[in-house]
């Protein structure tokens, strides 16, 4: 038995409403399968399973708003999946049988297959079930990054809930830094000041899925506001920028794309992301999360791609393990993410767990973007427009496609020199894109 808890889709989310379930008790689910839909301040998202197993119970009724970390689905022990049995049983015909026996009494069946070739020890039974559970184990609870839970007094929590106030950005002044009634009152006053009296009155939490597009945008604005406020309040940013000549990179890309169908052509943005991801391997203090007063570097690069939504607001869906992607895969992932973001078809698993973010305002023509770090991350890389600029080459003036790459990084974790090395490394990699 294990519980799937409501995941945090970012530091600015602390609750969501269960819109619907698309599984029922008894259904077997694999990691990544759709469980249902949830609605946050940022919209409606597909909730995909982070574990495999059989749904034992749906713990939250549709229409219920629950906080991050609340158990929402109870899973029973994962059923052995076909791939699980296959490597274990060399006898080809036996293999398919194992998965068909998901019920409890699999023990008596399983021993028959593997036991024959082995020594006829009596207590072989425990070994057989061990295989499936061992397989299930890694798929089981991936310790989800526990969201930071500040102390909130019961009264403050109640009042905040009554007014639909997101406590993420509220500073506590009470015992042990707890958020008190007074802190909530201040935050409510600030919010009311910030949202010039809409005739509909204060945006009160709407039960169930009664969010109109307008209230989603309001919620989105609040969520973005909470995240950037927290970022600018808590994170001492430092900023660097670095101009990079993309002459070689774009020339290589043109050759690379020349003999490929349009659908497989690589975008310049993918090259930039690829170089960024690779450069991060050498500057671990820019890739990870800073929580509870300590920085945890990440060996994997989960890169959040800051994306504007049509209706307003931002999300930063994550390409997980970007360091393992080839250029073509990265390109495809980027296209896919942007399309699905615009279509409102993002999955919950794509909205959290980023270790760094990339923002690209180049297609709007700006030269440079100085980003706001998305907490609890510690760095954000920005790309401006790739534009022809005068550029000194071998003592002569040339016209080259140049991009300004910026870095905003958390000075608690890294220093400017490391950021400078990082940007220079990106620049170097872009001079030799064929190695990418």
């Amino acid at each position, binding site marked *: 038995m294990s519980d799937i808890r409501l995941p945090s889709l970012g530091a600015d989310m602390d609750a969501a409403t269960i819109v619907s379930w698309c599984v029922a008790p008894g259904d077997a689910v694999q990691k990544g399968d759709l469980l249902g839909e949830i609605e946050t301040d940022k919209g409606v998202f597909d909730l995909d399973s982070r574990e495999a197993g059989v749904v034992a119970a749906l713990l939250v009724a549709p229409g219920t708003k629950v906080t991050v970390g609340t158990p929402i689905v109870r899973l029973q022990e994962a059923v052995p999946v076909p791939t699980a049995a296959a490597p274990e049983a060399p006898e080809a015909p036996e293999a398919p049988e194992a998965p068909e026996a998901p019920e409890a009494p699999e023990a008596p069946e399983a021993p028959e297959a593997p036991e024959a070739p082995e020594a006829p020890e009596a207590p072989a039974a425990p070994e057989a079930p061990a295989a499936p559970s061992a397989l299930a184990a890694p798929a089981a609870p991936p310790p989800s990054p526990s969201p930071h839970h500040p102390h909130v*007094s*019961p009264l403050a929590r109640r009042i905040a809930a009554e007014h639909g106030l997101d406590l993420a950005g509220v500073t506590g*002044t*009470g*015992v042990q830094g707890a958020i*008190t009634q*007074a802190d909530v009152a201040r935050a409510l006053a600030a919010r009311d000041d910030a949202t010039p009296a809409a005739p509909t009155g204060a945006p009160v939490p709407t039960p169930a899925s009664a969010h109109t597009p307008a209230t989603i945008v309001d919620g989105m604005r609040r969520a973005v506001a909470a995240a950037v406020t927290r970022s600018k309040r808590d994170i001492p940013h430092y900023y660097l920028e670095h101009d990079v000549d993309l002459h070689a990179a774009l020339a290589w890309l043109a050759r690379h794309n020349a003999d490929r169908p349009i659908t497989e052509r690589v975008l310049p943005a993918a090259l930039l992301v690829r170089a960024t991801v690779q450069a991060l391997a050498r500057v671990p203090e820019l890739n990870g999360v800073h929580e509870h007063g300590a920085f945890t570097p990440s060996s994997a690069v989960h890169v959040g791609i800051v994306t504007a939504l049509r209706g307003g607001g931002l999300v930063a869906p994550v390409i997980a393990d970007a360091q393992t992607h080839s250029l073509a895969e990265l390109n495809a992932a980027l296209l896919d993410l942007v399309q699905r973001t615009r279509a409102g078809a993002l999955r919950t698993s794509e909205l959290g767990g980023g270790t760094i973010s990339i923002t690209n305002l180049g297609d709007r023509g700006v030269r440079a973007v100085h980003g706001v770090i998305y907490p609890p991350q510690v760095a954000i890389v920005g790309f401006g427009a790739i534009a022809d600029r005068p550029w000194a080459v071998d003592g002569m003036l040339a016209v080259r496609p140049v991009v300004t790459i910026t870095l905003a990084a958390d000075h608690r974790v890294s220093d400017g020199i490391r950021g400078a090395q990082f940007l220079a490394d990106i620049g170097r990699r872009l001079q030799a894109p064929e190695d990418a």
Partner: protein
Amino acid sequence: MAEQAQAPMPSAAAPAPESPATPATVRMTYREAVREAIREAMHADPRVFVMGEDVGAYGGCYAVTKGLLTEFGPERLRDTPLSESAFVGAGIGAAVGGMRPIVEIMTVNFSLLALDQIMNTAATFLHMSGGQCNVPVVIRMTTGAGRQLAAQHSHSLEGWYAHIPGLRILAPATVEDARRMLAPALADPDPVLLFEHALLYNVSGDVPPADAFVPFDRAIVRRAGHDVTLVTYGGMLARTLEAAERLAADDGIEAEVIDLRSLRPLDEATILDSVRRTHRAVIVDEGWRSGSLSAEIAARIAEQAFFDLDAPLRRVCSAEVPMPYARHLEQAALPQVDGILAAVRPLVTR
């Protein structure tokens, strides 16, 4: 209830009207108040008599019954042997037999010798007799520390008695309550224990006319406030009020002070009503913290007013040691004003 929130603690001596007969406010000491209450009860009801160690010829170890032997004679002021179990048991028997005894025990520590009689007999008879047999006994005893009487005479065990169903536990903290609580205690058909804090006997205070008396099972807001509720009783009331005044003067914190008066049953409504307005509570109890009356009050607040709380509950209790003899150690072991201030201040942030 707010109208009752006068501060009856010693203040600048006011000219006291000298005729106790007139229905006006009179001023007296806590000791005199208890004595007047006993005298009044003995005049009012011939079934009332006093029994205990040294209550007659000696006048009581705290001189509460001084002079009553002359007035009422040895039949009604009965000196007993030094055997708490015997004379408390005799008192219970007399009550069952139709009398209205007032049994005095020197200190709550000594009452443990009579705990069997109090708990296994007085508190159970009505229940075990199927409602046939009330035990209308009143047992008075001294409680509390502060007089260097060390670890066998100084404890505050009223919270133990407040644990026992079948008993009514009263803690008169003011001169008025000392004067007025005895009569309804005697009128109660069931056993009532009155706990008189040893430090209160010399305190002077006003006693308003009897019709101003708030029923003895109600807690009283002794000081109105809106920032934090201080719940206390008995000997701790005066210093809790002093702390409240300091908080107002030094910190601008307006503390509401509740005098429980009745430790069993507890007047939950008054406590919860206050906490729901102030959103914070500190309990000041001379008893030990572990398994105490303060724990009971804190639990009830948490059970019933959790979502009104804006800060953790706090308690100010005696140090968990046998009460020391040495004066500085005794004072260090007892709840003090500074300790109350230190408990309250962090809770009230703005």
